[in-house]
């Protein structure tokens, strides 16, 4: 069998490359931002941040810019186009008046967002009047219809790709609720009719049109004049539309930078329930630590990517090893060799994928029975018809009887016992919070569990236990510092958010790095509230007593301090055993053992990490040689 030796040790579940590939393949979003650039967009303002008025055009631009910056990290395979209408200049494939498609070099009109696009778009407002210009496109006496033209251009841009693989959207930013207001009679009716027909054609192609109205304080945006028909709103939705659209605009601006993963089956597994009854399950990774993304090594001179070549060299002869080498384990004074086949054979201890062993009450699943993130399982009737039925029956029984299933999962990387915990579906107005199904929790073996709590029993006395009063004080404290609706969806990963911010700043050559907020720091303000402080003080008094000095009053620290001081003393003495300067001058440092070298480093408070050469060079540097 031709096995890649590294593969046997690899955790097959988390293959980032694979995920990357998957992402590019599956459902994407194509978005055309359609921005009204009429003079009205520049003349009207709405209150923005810091109570300062912001012009509508600026609001739209910054909203799109923020959205792009998020998108490039979250869903960089989505494609976008930015298109203005009611412009002086025109730039579009159809050569229609009043429509300008904004783009940068090395990019198609509808394409993945690039750093350059974001960067140039960020400063578009400076050059907008000069290069693109603003002008009403619909004027009495002219047959031009810039809104119609804009929709047509957007539709043409979205011609790319199939509706099956991509979700296509047009986002329309405007503050004009009645674009044909300046017209009269037949001209108006005619333009309205053709524009609505165009919008309907677009929607029939599976492209959705969303309206993001910019609203002035003193003036209402009347959706029912034209747009309710254009975007296809029911009368019931009408009342809700304006508030929800405002919310949408806000949401676009502060989206979390979070890499999106498309739903993907990790593997299909067979679940043997009893002899003769095996069903099919699909497993999904609902929770996995997200990392900053794969690193590509670059040549710092050319900025070209590097490829990594791995070669195996025999230490004895220096020759290259081509075939995958055997492995060995020193044992009983000899090297016991294993072939890769043997190793995979050793690991193959179970034929089935997942084998049910029995059920236990939920209380048997302890908090420390955990090793890795859980995996979600959901039935599939794709190969075995009837799988879902059995799964649902067991799922319901387990929920009702409060049991979890114990099963053996015979995967090739680490065959182990798992707990299958059934979860019922939880839905809120916002959608599904918890999917229905079972979570596979990987259980430790006896050798994986440690008993550190048992290593320090007091030899004679029983361990101190809190009394009733102390427990009561603690309970009062717990009530005071309570987080009512805590959910794991509360905290963003501060390191990751920081990384994304740094990446954006460097990519866009921004001068300063956008601030990221660490949401995980304690609520100092809340903790400083008098009631909380009082509860804490009372608890402190009850367990620590009156005169407790945290720094000094305890035996342990002294002992540890004593021990470490003693160790250091020994190290210092040991260091005196050698004439270091002499050894260094004669190049004899390499003859000392690593342990001996470390005595010097310890005595001088230097780091003791690294290989022997590193230690020697560190000593030499310290001596100034």
């Amino acid at each position, binding site marked *: 069998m031709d096995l890649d030796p590294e593969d046997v040790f690899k955790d097959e579940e988390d293959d980032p490359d694979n995920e990357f590939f998957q992402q590019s393949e599956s459902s994407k979003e194509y978005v055309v931002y359609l921005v009204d650039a009429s003079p009205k967009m520049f003349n009207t303002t709405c209150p923005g941040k810091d109570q300062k008025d912001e012009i509508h055009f600026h609001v739209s631009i910054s909203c799109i810019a923020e959205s792009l910056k998020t998108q*490039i990290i979250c869903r*960089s395979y989505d494609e976008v186009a930015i298109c203005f209408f009611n412009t002086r200049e025109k730039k579009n494939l159809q050569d229609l008046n009043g429509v300008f498609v904004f783009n940068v070099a090395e990019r198609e009109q509808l394409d993945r967002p690039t750093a350059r696009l974001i960067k140039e778009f960020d400063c578009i407002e400076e050059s907008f009047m000069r290069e693109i210009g603003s002008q009403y496109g619909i004027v009495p006496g002219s047959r031009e219809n810039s809104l119609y033209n804009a929709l047509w251009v957007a539709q043409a841009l979205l011609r790319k790709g199939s509706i099956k693989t991509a979700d296509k959207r047009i986002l329309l930013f405007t503050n004009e609720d009645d674009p044909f207001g300046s017209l009269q009679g037949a001209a108006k009716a005619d333009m309205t009719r053709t524009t609505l027909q165009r919008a309907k054609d677009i929607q029939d192609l599976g492209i959705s049109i969303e309206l993001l109205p910019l609203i002035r304080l003193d003036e209402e945006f009347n959706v029912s004049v034209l747009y309710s028909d254009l975007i296809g709103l029911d009368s019931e939705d009408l009342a809700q539309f304006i508030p929800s659209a405002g919310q949408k605009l806000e949401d676009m601006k502060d989206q979390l930078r*979070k890499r999106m*993963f498309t*739903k993907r089956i990790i593997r299909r597994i067979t679940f043997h329930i009893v*002899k003769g009854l095996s069903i099919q399950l699909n497993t999904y990774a*609902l929770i996995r*630590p*997200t990392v900053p993304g794969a690193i590509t*090594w*670059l*040549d*710092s001179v050319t900025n070209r990517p*590097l490829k*990594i070549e791995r*070669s195996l060299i025999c*230490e004895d*002869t220096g020759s290259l090893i081509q075939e995958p*080498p055997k492995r*060995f384990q020193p*044992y009983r004074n000899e090297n*016991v060799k294993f072939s890769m086949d*043997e190793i995979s054979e050793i690991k193959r201890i179970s034929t089935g994928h997942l*084998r049910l062993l*029995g059920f236990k009450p939920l209380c*048997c699943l302890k908090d420390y029975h955990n090793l890795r*993130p*859980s995996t979600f399982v959901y039935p599939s009737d794709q190969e075995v018809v*009837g799988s879902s039925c059995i799964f649902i*029956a067991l799922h319901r029984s*387990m929920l009702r*009887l409060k049991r979890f*299933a114990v099963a*053996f999962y015979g995967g090739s990387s*680490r065959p182990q016992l798992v707990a299958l915990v059934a*979860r019922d579906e939880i839905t809120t107005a916002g959608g599904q919070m918890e*999917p229905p*199904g079972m*979570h596979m*929790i990987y259980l430790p*073996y*006896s*050798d*994986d569990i*440690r008993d*550190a*709590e048992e290593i320090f029993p007091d030899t004679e006395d029983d361990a*101190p236990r809190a009394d009733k009063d102390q*427990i009561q004080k603690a309970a009062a404290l*717990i009530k005071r510092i*309570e*987080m009512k609706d805590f959910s*794991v969806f509360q905290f963003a*990963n*501060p*390191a990751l958010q920081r990384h994304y911010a*740094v*990446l954006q700043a460097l990519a866009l050559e921004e001068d300063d790095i956008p601030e990221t907020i660490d949401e995980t720091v304690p609520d100092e303000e809340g903790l400083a509230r008098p009631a909380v402080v009082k509860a*804490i003080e009372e608890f402190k008094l009850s367990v620590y007593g009156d005169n407790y000095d945290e720094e000094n009053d305890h*035996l342990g620290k002294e002992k540890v301090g004593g021990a470490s001081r003693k160790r250091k003393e020994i190290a210092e003495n040991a260091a005196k055993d050698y004439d270091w300067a002499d050894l260094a001058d004669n190049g004899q440092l390499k003859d000392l053992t690593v342990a001996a070298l470390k005595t010097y480093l310890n005595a001088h408070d230097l780091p003791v990490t690294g290989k022997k050469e590193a230690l020697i060079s560190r000593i030499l540097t310290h001596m100034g040689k």
Partner: protein
Amino acid sequence: MARNKEKLVLLLDVGPSMHGVLPEVEKVCSMLVEKKLIFNKDDEVGVVVFGTEETNNELMDEVGGYENIVVLQDIKVVDGDLIDILKKLPRGTVDGDFLDAIVVGMDMLIKKYKGIYKGKKRLCLITNAIHPTKDSLEGSKEDQVGTLAVQMTAQGMKMESIVVRGILSQDANKRIMDENDRLLSIFSKKTRSRTVYVDSPISLLGALKTRRVTPVTVFRGHLELSQQMKIKVWVYKKTQEEKFPTLKKYSEKAPSTSKFATHQVMVDYEYKSVDDSSTVVPPEQRIKGYRYGPQVVPISDAERDAVKFKPEKGVKLLGFTDASNIIRHYYMKDVYLFIAEPGNTRAILAVSAIARAMKEMNKVAILRCVWRQGQQNVVVGVLTPNISQNNKIPDSFYFNVLPFIEDVREYQFPSFNSFPASWLPNEQQQMAADEFVQMLNLAPSGKEEALLPEFTPNPVLERFYHHLELKSKQPDAAVPPLDETLKRITEPDLELDFENKSVLDSLCKHFELKENSKLKKSARRLLPEKPSGSNGEDGNGNVSDARAVDSIGQEPVVKIEKIGDLTPVQDFEVMMTRRDNPEWVGKAIREMRDKILSLLTNSHGGDNYLVAVECIIALRKGCILEQEPGPYNNLMRYLYRYCQEKEISTFPKLLASMDVTLISKSEAVDSSNFTDDEARRFLDKIKPEPKD
């Protein structure tokens, strides 16, 4: 490092009542030594067996008594011989006295190290403790044990007792067992001892920790409830996966006879430019790049270090919340243990008070942890109380890491209620499932919980060390089969299954599984077994099913409108699954029938017969799926007559050997007139037996 060495004496009961479990004792003890040979080569081990016919120990020579105790191996540094001794423990003939054995073991440790050695000294007792101990000469047994316990503590010894009970020990005198348990519990109370009771061979294998790991703290410092209130804690790992050993790569380049050859392999990485693979880019010229959209942005480590997120070391409380807000499957990693600083009474009290209050109120605490300075990220997790059951051990907390928002992928799954009714279990099915879940109980009250993680050994590692030992003796030894006892971990307990046979059978009866026939061949690797609850017809259909399945072609990507000559079966399948027009099914069946007939009539010396049979099987399957047995049954009757007329015998024989019967009533409920029997008899009829 001397302080890390362990001196261990194994005290093994080999009396007649222990014979049943001695194979497991041998396994677990040799595994212990095998691991020591790799991970703790300098540890020293001695072996004492009791319950033997003979007597051989120093105490007997010196003071008399202590009969039936043999020192198999004096304390010495672990080596291979020790394994050989442990693999062949003698079978004793008398009931041993474990107290005497403890005395002998302690005596060995004391004599050998005379109080000089301050490191770890441990006794490990494996017995069933069902036989009476001898009365002590002075004072009660309790006093005697008390004295031993004091001595044990004074000498800094630990004891671990594994008591084999339940189904593993025979019916024993309850009074004696209770007395022995009481005596052993004195050790637990007064010394650093731990006694575990096991009642299955698996837990016996798992009860003894075979790998000795010195715990290392992850963090020592304050648990900050607020600026004013801090508790000194130490944090350890509670669980940590014991990995499969990383084996070094072996080079066969050097002659195997060479004494000095290390046979090691160096792994070398070279970074080369994509454009020019001849130049190697030196490390200082390399820079890490991160993806930003389609581009890769280079960020040097220095740049990154300068601006990256740098949290301050510390463990801070964010708040308390209801335990129900934290769902179990959000636990992300291996588990940590928070204990109050040892010896710090007030810290222990504070931890104890909070833990107990949390337990009472059913609350958990959310913490933000940075274990060490320079850590790249913060950890947010949940602290749950661990109320100690043992008076000696202080209360503590467990800590589990929780995901950040970025780590949670919000995939949507269809609600079970949205499934078609045929996919949902009916009342009988639900009852069968309820009963099944209830009966297949691994933790029945009054019995030991089966497969308790704490007592379940890792079967892969067990097998690896076993194989290693075998290979050290015989380099080409084959991988041994998985130990019979350990199979209990990977496969259902037959005994439990047998006890609940009726429940299992009812489950099988109530649920029926079918392979989905409209599926690619490559994806088909499920359903190795046929449901045992199915009727005979299914069993007979086995061969033909498999054939038909094999021949099912790709999904209908190409619109096939006609059954061709090359792949008639596939074409047929595709046409049958076409749903754009109901007429396709009829057309497919007709065309297939014609195809079969033409195959037969144009056959020369039976060269087309196999293809024809395949077509028939496919047609049969298709007709069953569509519940239209008519065309198929008619065709078969026609074929029967046809063969009789033409005196063709090989073709019917072929059909019979494939068990191709008529479609019976049980397969096509509404439309077939044949009972199973009749359908089968057709085969007999078709069989070309010379009927005078």
